[in-house]
């Protein structure tokens, strides 16, 4: 590949030479130049008198000459110099404009880079996440069905992320808190305050491999693993200053969507859930870290759950969002209601033909092939229908809330 051009540059000439105004009344345009007869060779004459632009002219001549002819060397050089002078003037203007463009471009970059962070993401980039989500919702409506695979292709899922799972839950103490359901008081599982339900934990360590998050010691603070550098210092300061919250003990802190005391709702048991039709699914799980695995899931469809326990209308309309949380409130996620109605959104009780294990979110986790893994919450303790855009663990640490695939 070559971008070589046999013609030399004219700007090698010393700057002290004649100004364009002196030399060229600028009557020479390139179109006129086209009409003129191409110059025959001029080498001998030109070389005899290297007056104006020896370097440039010589190079032109050397590459061009076929047979020497008689032309007035001074005139040729003067004519060429007029062309070069016009070019210099044009070059000057072009480079001033180019410099202005470069400064504007750099200013644009600085504007982004110096913007304040919104949930650990630079504001213009956070806005871009939101705009991208709006476009994706409008174009796709989250309707497409993810491809499914044969059972043979499925394999055990990696454990990745153990927030809200670190202590072993006593299975009998598990209830699903459900808030915002229609005619809640008519259900036998109704209670006037779901927040008083006490989840119990076992002290014994699990033998299960609890996995890692990324490339770092699983005990390192999340900010060190995932947060963008400019915001990390800030996060570390806050982490050190803040008292440990009773809920939300991980890096992102307590969810602003967590329940207030005295929130009425239902306390559902696993038996309640298993009354819904069982569904199996073999789909690809995709982590925003980049890896993906085909997994065999079984459980009940969230769509069926929403049929059985429909959301109460707010201001005459269905609420827009669904919020979920682990029993200890350490991990939490938010969704559009319609994504929960997607026929492949599954409340999972089994993986790879076996009941869920502790670090895969026993007894109940979410799978939705329309979202990245960080939205597929493990060990669901609360489902809440809400009109306020719910808080989301990884969104607070700089990731996109929508996370739609």
């Amino acid at each position, binding site marked *: *590949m*070559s*971008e*070589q051009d046999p*013609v*030399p*540059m*004219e700007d090698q000439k010393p700057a002290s030479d004649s100004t364009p105004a002196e030399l*060229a*009344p600028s009557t020479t345009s*390139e179109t*006129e*130049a*086209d009409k*003129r007869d191409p*110059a025959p060779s001029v080498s001998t004459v030109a070389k005899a008198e290297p007056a104006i632009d020896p370097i440039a002219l010589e190079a*032109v*001549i050397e*590459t*061009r000459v076929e047979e020497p002819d008689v*032309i007035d060397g*001074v*005139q*040729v050089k*003067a*004519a060429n110099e*007029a*062309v*070069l002078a016009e*070019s210099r003037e044009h*070059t000057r203007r*072009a*480079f001033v404009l180019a410099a202005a463009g470069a400064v504007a*471009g750099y200013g644009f970059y600085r504007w*982004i880079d110096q913007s304040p962070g919104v949930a650990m993401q*630079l504001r213009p*980039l956070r806005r*871009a*996440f939101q705009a991208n989500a709006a476009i*994706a919702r409008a174009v*796709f409506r989250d*309707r*497409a*069905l*993810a*491809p499914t695979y044969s059972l043979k292709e499925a394999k055990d899922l990696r454990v990745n992320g153990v927030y809200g799972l670190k202590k072993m839950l006593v299975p009998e103490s598990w209830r699903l808190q459900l808030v915002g359901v229609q005619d809640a008081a008519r259900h036998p599982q109704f209670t006037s305050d779901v927040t008083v339900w006490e989840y119990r934990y076992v002290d014994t360590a699990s033998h299960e491999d609890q996995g890692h998050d990324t*490339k770092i010691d699983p005990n390192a603070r999340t900010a060190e*693993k*995932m947060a*963008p*550098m400019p915001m*990390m210092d800030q996060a570390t300061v806050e982490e050190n200053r803040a008292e440990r919250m009773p809920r939300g003990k991980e890096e992102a802190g307590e969810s602003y969507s967590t329940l207030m005391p005295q929130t009425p709702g239902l306390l559902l048991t696993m038996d309640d859930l298993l009354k819904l039709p069982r569904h199996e699914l073999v789909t690809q799980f*995709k982590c*925003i*870290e*980049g*890896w993906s695995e085909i997994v065999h899931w079984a459980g009940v469809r969230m769509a069926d759950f929403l049929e059985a326990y429909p959301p109460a209308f707010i201001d005459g309309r269905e609420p827009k969002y669904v919020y979920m949380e682990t029993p200890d409130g350490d991990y939490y996620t938010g969704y559009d209601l319609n994504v929960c109605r997607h026929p492949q959104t599954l409340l999972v009780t089994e993986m790879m033909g076996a009941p869920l294990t502790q670090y895969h979110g026993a007894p109940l986790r979410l799978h939705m092939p329309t979202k990245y893994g960080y939205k597929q919450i493990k060990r669901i303790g609360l489902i809440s229908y809400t009109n306020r855009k719910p808080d989301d663990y990884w969104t607070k640490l700089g*990731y996109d809330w929508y996370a*739609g*695939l």
Partner: protein
Amino acid sequence: MSLVSADKMTVTIRIERKHPLAIRWMHWVNFPVLFTMIWSGILIYWNDSDNAYRHPHAIYRIGIGKVTLLRLFPEWVYRQMNVPYHVTEGLGYHFFFMWIFALNGIAYVIFLVLSGEWRFLVPERRSLRDAIQVTLVDLHLRKGLPEQIKYNGAQRIAYSSVILMGVGILVTGLAIYKPTQLHWLTSLLGGYEMARWLHFWITMSFLAFFMVHVGQVVLAGWNNFRAMVSGREIQSANDPSIELARRSWK
């Protein structure tokens, strides 16, 4: 020196309008934007390139059979480039600048088609032969560059390929970005992992193109470089005229 009216004299050089304004703008917008896309892409890619699980990403490597010469990228490369733990920064920039990259690229192709400038760019029957000759001349193995108007055969092939790479990077990017909503596209490319693999290697091709391109621009010199800024190039009057070629299309 007496001033003689220019058209009475015989000039041996002329100013040629080489690159239209639109092409220059889009070229220079693309330069930092493509850089940002590659840089932010590497920040994202790092997150899965060599993690604690030793997740065997055998495909992101250079090797034959089971012998791996190089895994991309070695730890020291990441450290040198300050890549580790900037994932969300990468995601933020990638999903912002993708729009500028895509729109600029689409505008470029539309401009090429509408202006007719594609005629300078699309390889001709003789381009491959010319490209070989040009390469040999570049390597000082042979003499005599083949005749060209705006671009030689090697340039035609390279610049057309880079447009195809642009199409490829957008299509594979889309397949990774929306693998559920656009699963037909992802499947067409051989699945999610394959789409990621293609996306990665097209990026590497962009880097390779960039190296050669910058090297050639440096070798070609000021006159050629300036034309990408000012649009004009000084040509010998004997050279075939780019402007005349443009007029001949109409």
